[in-house]
């Protein structure tokens, strides 16, 4: 069989499959695995009458390579996937964790509206549920990309979730196990059962068993508690291959490791926390139920220092400016205002900064915070932080560069506004150009694109905008490919 013909068959089976929400299409990890293509089984299966998708699961549609691979299921990845799919493209959306939502799902509120990230997430999830063109693969990593613009083969690896699509999210498994793990969605600030739903808005709405309990009686307890046969302790990691025309890298960001900024004492002083941890403290779903409590003694924090550029704008750490941290700290000062503590010291904040980068319309928010008498600004890069062991308070040392005044200021909690760095670009294809900080600039042949915080330190609004642009670029590639390829037999 000629190459062209073979490709048509391949593509046909793929696009038929890619209709993720097609009626009754089981969406378990296991099932999904079979339904893309496995190495070895692939290529000949559909043509040779091998294992075909079950009849009800297939609606044959546009049969050319209209598939985009989106890597990363945070706000940028979801946006890129949905925007492209709502233009008619087929999308495979791959996320390494067990749920979509990414880091924004771990934020309490967005600046400048002080609205909740889950509000937009709900809309995006509803778009996803009603769109059959997006196929979601969670707990999945990209292992390898081969091929060229318009015709890539991506090798994916699905980690076992140990819970299949029969899960109803009833929660009986979580109640049955006694093992607990550090809660990754609260940055390890608390623990959760080793059988867990990642968070309240998790998608898919399906529990996960932590690998640490597999092979232990805990896993058996979970399995015994499930009345729906949803726990499959024999699940194994599996490799899948997908053929795609274009790839959007929306792999996101991670907070800079604050412990590397030695003089700030993170990891040594319990009341020095990062901005992302502070966000969890403020969140009603977080470890303190939304109360801003000091880790050392669970007393309400009322005199908080925000240390800007913790890692950013520093050639010893991150050379770039992370853009969002100024706005994040301005926002977080308002959490203290909302916390409702009483007395003279209620909700006081001090922001230690180099420049306040409240860019464009965000200036309005900065102005509002500046007018708040409970918020003080000190232009200074903090030199060092010491702990008063008796109280757990922190003493910040440095020089106020406006007037060159040395200070030693006491605070009951320090929030390090840690910088953003690319989540993990170790496995990115060599063809991708990265900037000096490792952010994705795009592939030289313009078949792979960066989106969101994988491409630059961006806030949510700009990440969504960047992802929409990436979706456009990817859509052009698939349309070009579709136009070049003869319609496949139906």
């Amino acid at each position, binding site marked *: 069989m000629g190459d062209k013909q073979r490709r048509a068959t391949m593509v046909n089976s793929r696009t038929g499959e890619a209709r993720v929400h097609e009626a009754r299409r089981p969406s378990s990890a296991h099932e999904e695995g079979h339904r893309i293509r496995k190495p070895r089984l692939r290529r000949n299966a559909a043509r040779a009458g091998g294992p075909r998708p079950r009849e009800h699961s297939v609606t044959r549609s546009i049969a050319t390579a209209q598939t985009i691979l989106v890597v990363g299921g945070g706000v940028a990845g979801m946006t890129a996937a949905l925007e492209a799919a709502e233009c008619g493209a087929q999308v495979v959306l791959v996320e390494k964790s067990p749920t979509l939502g990414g880091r924004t799902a771990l934020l309490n509120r967005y600046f400048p509206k002080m609205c909740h990230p889950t509000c937009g997430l709900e809309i995006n999830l509803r778009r996803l549920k009603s769109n059959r063109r997006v196929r979601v693969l969670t707990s999945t990593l990209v292992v390898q990309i081969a091929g060229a613009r318009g015709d890539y083969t991506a090798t994916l690896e699905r980690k076992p979730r140990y819970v299949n699509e029969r899960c109803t999210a009833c929660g009986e498994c979580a109640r049955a196990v006694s093992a607990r793990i550090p809660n990754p969605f609260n940055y390890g600030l608390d623990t959760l059962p080793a059988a867990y739903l990642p968070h309240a808005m998790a998608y898919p709405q399906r529990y996960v068993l932590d690998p640490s309990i597999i092979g232990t009686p805990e896993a058996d307890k979970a399995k015994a508690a499930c009345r729906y046969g949803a726990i499959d302790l024999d699940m194994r990691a599996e490799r899948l291959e997908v053929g795609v025309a274009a790839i959007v890298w929306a792999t996101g960001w991670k907070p800079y490791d604050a412990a590397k900024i030695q003089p700030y004492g993170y990891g040594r002083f319990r009341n020095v926390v990062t901005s992302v941890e502070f966000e969890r403290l403020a969140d009603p*779903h977080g470890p303190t139920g939304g109360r801003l409590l000091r880790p050392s003694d669970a007393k309400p924090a009322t005199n908080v220092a925000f240390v800007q550029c913790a890692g950013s704008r520093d050639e010893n750490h991150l050379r770039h400016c992370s853009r969002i941290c100024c706005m994040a700290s301005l926002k977080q000062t308002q959490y203290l205002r909302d916390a409702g503590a009483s007395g003279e010291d209620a909700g006081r904040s001090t922001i230690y900064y180099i420049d*306040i980068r409240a860019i464009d319309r965000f200036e309005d928010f900065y102005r509002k915070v500046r007018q708040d008498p409970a918020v003080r600004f000190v232009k200074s890069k903090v030199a060092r932080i010491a702990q008063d062991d008796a109280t757990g308070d922190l003493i910040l040392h440095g020089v106020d560069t406006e007037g060159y005044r040395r200070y030693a200021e006491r605070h009951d909690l320090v929030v390090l506004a840690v910088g953003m760095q690319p989540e993990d670009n170790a496995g990115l294809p060599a063809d991708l150009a990265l900037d000096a900080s490792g952010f994705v600039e795009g592939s030289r042949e313009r078949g792979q694109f960066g989106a969101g915080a994988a491409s630059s330190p961006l806030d949510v609004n700009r990440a969504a905008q960047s992802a929409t642009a990436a979706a456009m670029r990817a859509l*052009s590639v698939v349309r070009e490919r579709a136009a070049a390829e003869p319609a496949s037999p139906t």
Partner: protein
Amino acid sequence: VSETRTAAYVCTGCGIGEALDAPALSKVAQREGKMAIVREHAFLCSDDGVRLIRDDIANEAVTHVMIAACSRRAKTDAFDFPATAMARANLREGVVWAVAADDAHAEARQEMAADYVRMGCAELKKIKAPAGNAPAAANRRILVVGGGVSGLTAAIEAADAGHDVVVVEKSASLGGFAARLWRRTPAREPYAEPQPTGIDELIAQAASHPRIAVRLESRVAETRGAPGRFSVTIAQESGATSVEDVGAIVQASGFTTYDIAKLPELGGTCPHVIDQAELEVLARAANGGPIRRGDGRVVKSVAFVQCAGQRDDTGRHLPYCSGHCCATSIKQAMYFKDAVPDVDAVVLYSDLRMPGMGEDFYRSAQRKGVAFTKARVSGVEPNDGGCTVRFRDLILDADAAVDVDLVVLATGQVPSAGVDIDAPEDAQADVKPVSILNLAYRQGRDLPQLAHGFADSHFICFPYETRRTGIYAAGPVRRPMDLAQAVDDATGAALKAIQAIENAAAGRAAHPRSGDLSYPIVRLEGCTQCKRCTVECPFGAIDEDDKRFPVFNASRCRRCGTCMGACPVRVISFENYSVDSVGAQIKSIDMPDELSQKPRILVLACENDAYPALDMAGHTRRRYSPFVRVVPVRCLGSVNTIWVTDALNGGWDGVMLLGCRKGDDYQCHFVKGSEMAIDRMSKVADTLKQLGLEPERVITHEVAITDVARVPELIDAYAAKIVEIGPSPMKAFA
């Protein structure tokens, strides 16, 4: 047209079977709900359970399915039956997980579940699966207004994706502001030197693109229609006009620079004080050599004054930051340093804003010897041959002055967004704004502006969602931005335009109800031409004809149902969501008598935020009063007051509306739905008075999706309040 055949399925999984008497619920569905088929299943979302339903659809000609199981937000993959009408009674999150599991609550729990089954059956009989509306046209061309970098980028992206594009540019040449630049700031590694603008290549690419037509010296004289069928009149400066049919529009109308004549305190009227745009002219003239100012003298010292007429707290100038100006001044300082290294170049700033890798560009300027001083500039005045800049040095905390040959004011971007349709015409600026789009829309000629004249989206997660479907602002007209961001922004806008065309062609809704095939159906014979729908539509989707009847433009509509909520004569409905489909639910419940001490409270909950919050309350087993019956609504704006008066007349003891935050920082996905609901409810107060009912019988709360703990508290507090004021006297008449 096939006959309606109904079927109800009661799931007994997830504890439903233990907590509730499922056979009794089946009986309710059969006897009261009049369902033709009623089945129970222990695990309805399993393959086996779904097959049961699917087989009934295939073999029993079932067209309408009522699923009494979990929330409509759960198991959507499993319960997905195309072309089948579906209602879902939320027994799991809404009853079993929300009401205490003890025996004391057994009766209340069962009553609640039975009511949800009644409501599901009632709703089901009033809806059909939306068939979608046949598009009036599916024009795939795209109009781009503006021939600058944003417009050209959008045009090329759309054209490369296979769409024909018409670019309308008011001036005689393409390129916009970028064509006036000598160099641009770098947008990729290495972030060290000013870069060629690339504008000539971009212009050439657009001009030679087979799918792109360019109309120079032209403006949009009129835009009518809707996505998929816009008809745009283009007027040339010569007076000639032509009509272009397009499917979607990208508005990349750019910006003007803030007029430095408005900044006399910064020497804006002095000869050797110029703005950044003017410096680009000098740099182009210098062509890489020493830069000469207007009088021909080579500049040996230059000061850049940042935030000139920007970030202004006095209300006289621009309140915002334009974002690009710090990088632009750094780039321009490099023009001087690169040509003549011993030129003194100082940047006077308050916060230097170089996000991302811009930091490297900043470092590069420092290496080149550009000086940076944190300062508050108090004045610029002419001196012999140059200017004196007076400032407060914020580092030394002392007054200082510097004499320079040239002062460059970093002024801001003023968006060219056209007419502010929300402002009264006479209140507008001294220079009357010229409309960009000249929309023949009931609600005004241009895109609504968000703040400071920018035609931006209010939504953080959805930057392109302007309030006119199929028209997308891109570039500095949307938000202050630099070239690199304008390119990205325009690329995204091109996608949104393509998407609007695809949606219009398929007859489906755009964001946030993406893919929704329902659309407003109006019985014009009952219409009283009151115009409430045309005025209140948050998206300007409804026009008026010569006789002042509403004209619905389905592809402009976002399916929020605000028109349905507004209509006093109730002639507007959707196939799967109508005054009847909710009204029937309200009337369907088993209303206990006034002696029963079982109040009934109707909760109309926004499906985007309040309803998910209630779901999550169920998931976390937060208990709330079993006296409430929750009906999800598309938006509080879709709530027709008849539902409230019907409920009160029907003996409901209280009505609770749960919607999103309103006001400046509104969170309503349909812009003003919750605001309008509250406005309408204020009118219900009169009705309450007439009926002799306490004003507390109807209340409204703003809630957020995260109010997982608060919403149950609000419900319980309200239930307690209702118990306190006693049963509704209307019960006796119900």
